[in-house]
């Protein structure tokens, strides 16, 4: 779980009259947690009440766009089931955002952190960074709707290959696969500019039309997400009720990241 003490509104930056930036994680705290939900809720509140905003750019830290769930949040007794439960709310909030969301994924995005980006309307990835849904490599089943969004983003066969293996790929390796998001990979130092260009292009349309289209595109994804979240939760209940799951994660998840915590 993240322990960010910053007020959620401090993660919001107005890039211009029509574009809101939302910092989903920081270098000090690259993990998903309750604070991620608070930041997204604050962003939705601002966008809902400000008719000038017509696009949102989701941003992360320099090295990590998002490192997913922390090691401790998955291995402390009883915690695994708790975090896999509430992080399901994150994709819901992304689909609830009234205007289009562009994920500027310059840094590494792994586990739930990768899936978080994929639930946005558009993504920009860096050639140099690592991406993947590494849940199975850590010893537990994928969550946050990854059992549907990975296939959407990468195609069925590559999506399933990466889900089963938990393998990470560099942005440039993802591009070489020709996957559905291959077009979205650029050099790392061009990610922010590309994301802003996309947001600016989207924001040229009238807000009312953008809100209607976002609602239409999200309703389709929402239906898939809701089914996936329920079934993924059942898988997590089955696994996290066993002590061996926490032990398996602890053994596999030993990356030293900020605050000495690991990464998922």
């Amino acid at each position, binding site marked *: 779980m993240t322990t960010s003490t910053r007020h959620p509104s401090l993660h919001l930056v107005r890039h211009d009259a029509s574009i809101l930036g939302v910092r989903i994680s920081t270098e000090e705290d690259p993990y998903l947690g309750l604070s991620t939900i608070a930041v997204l809720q604050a962003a939705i509140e601002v966008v809902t009440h400000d008719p000038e905003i017509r696009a949102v750019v989701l941003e992360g830290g320099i*090295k*990590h766009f998002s*490192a997913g769930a922390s090691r401790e949040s998955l291995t402390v007794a009883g915690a695994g089931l708790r975090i896999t439960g509430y992080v399901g709310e994150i994709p819901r909030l992304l689909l609830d955002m009234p205007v289009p969301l562009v994920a500027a994924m310059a840094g*590494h995005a*792994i586990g739930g952190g990768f899936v978080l980006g994929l639930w946005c309307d558009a993504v920009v990835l860096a050639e*140099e960074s*690592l991406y993947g849904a590494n849940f199975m*490599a850590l010893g537990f089943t994928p969550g946050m709707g990854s059992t549907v969004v990975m296939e959407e983003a990468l195609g069925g066969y590559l999506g399933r290959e990466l889900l089963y293996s938990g393998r*990470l790929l*560099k942005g440039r*390796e993802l591009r070489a696969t020709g996957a559905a998001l291959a077009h979205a990979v650029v050099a790392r130092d061009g990610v922010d500019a590309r994301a802003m260009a996309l947001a600016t292009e989207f924001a040229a349309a009238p807000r009312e039309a953008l809100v209607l289209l976002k609602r239409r595109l999200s309703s389709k994804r929402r239906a898939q997400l809701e089914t996936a979240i329920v079934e993924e939760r059942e898988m997590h209940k089955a696994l996290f009720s066993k002590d061996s799951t926490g032990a398996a994660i602890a*053994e*596999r998840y*030993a*990356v*030293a*990241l900020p605050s000495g915590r690991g*990464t998922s």
Partner: protein
Amino acid sequence: MTRDHIFTVLKSNLEKVVDGARGKEVSEAQSLLKDFGADSLEVVEVVSRTMKELKLKIPRTALSEANDIGQLVDLFVRAAEAA
């Protein structure tokens, strides 16, 4: 499995994963973190790919003991001897 082979596989994965190592000379005395600017996730990814390719396992907790590439190769040599 020779030490040279382990080094070659490790070097190849280093070049694929760590951008700071692309097109550079790689020697056993160098550090992944300091000389090539790798971050901790990238180090783990290099090791993970090397483990898969060599079909060897080294305990992830042992990674912190390896300060340079030579010491990392040592970990693989020990794993190969124990296998």
